């Protein structure tokens, strides 16, 4: 069920809890940054352990999202690669480290 008010979602992204402030297209963007290390397999005999950066935020804060836009988190610059709107007002952005 969709949450009706974007402001209600802010409680999910409280800075004092798990959220952080990133710089998205030169403006502040509040969301939760995850950077889990995961085993990747691209057909080699050995797997490769790589980081998997994702930024989860309110959909209304990134209404003009496009591939190639930049997002800076913890002084690291990422490019927007893809994103998933979950349908409840929350979007998870897939990032590529530059």
């Amino acid at each position, binding site marked *: 069920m969709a949450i009706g008010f974007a402001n209600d979602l802010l409680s999910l992204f409280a800075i004092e809890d798990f959220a952080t402030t990133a710089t998205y297209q030169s403006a502040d963007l509040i969301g939760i940054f995850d950077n889990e290390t995961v085993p990747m397999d691209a057909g080699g*005999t050995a797997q490769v352990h790589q980081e998997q950066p994702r930024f989860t935020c309110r959909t209304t804060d990134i209404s003009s999202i496009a591939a190639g836009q930049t997002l800076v988190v913890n002084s690291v610059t990422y490019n927007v690669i893809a994103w998933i709107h979950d349908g409840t007002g929350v979007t998870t952005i897939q990032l590529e480290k530059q």
Partner: protein
Amino acid sequence: MAHVRQQIRDAVATTLTTAVTLVSSRVFTTRVHPLNEDLLPAISVYTGSEASDRYNIGVTDVTRNLSLEIDIYVRETSTFDDDVDAIAVQVEEAMANDFTIGGLVKSSVLTSTAIQFDGEADQILGVAKLTYAVRYVTAINDVETAK
């Protein structure tokens, strides 16, 4: 002395360590444990299946047809496929320049190249698997000496 198959694997790794400057000496043999991203780009050399047969009637030599695989691991951004091919150039030319792998084999020929990508992590991961058909000969009772 080791099995000739191991000597072949080690010789290829030594050749690639010197010749493939793009991987900065990150050449492994039979790497099965995961590679952390700070180890890339890298190469690992594997010796897989091997078919063997008697060399000739009345002769106690065995001819062996070995599948030698060279995996190239790369992580990059938009120039990814260029990087894979740049490393493949160095690998293929190094292998061609030592066609007999230091005299251990009769021939080594590239028979296939398979390249795959995965874009789910912080940078694109790509693996190129180069497969060589390697033919070598040993005595039936001495597999530590190439003939």
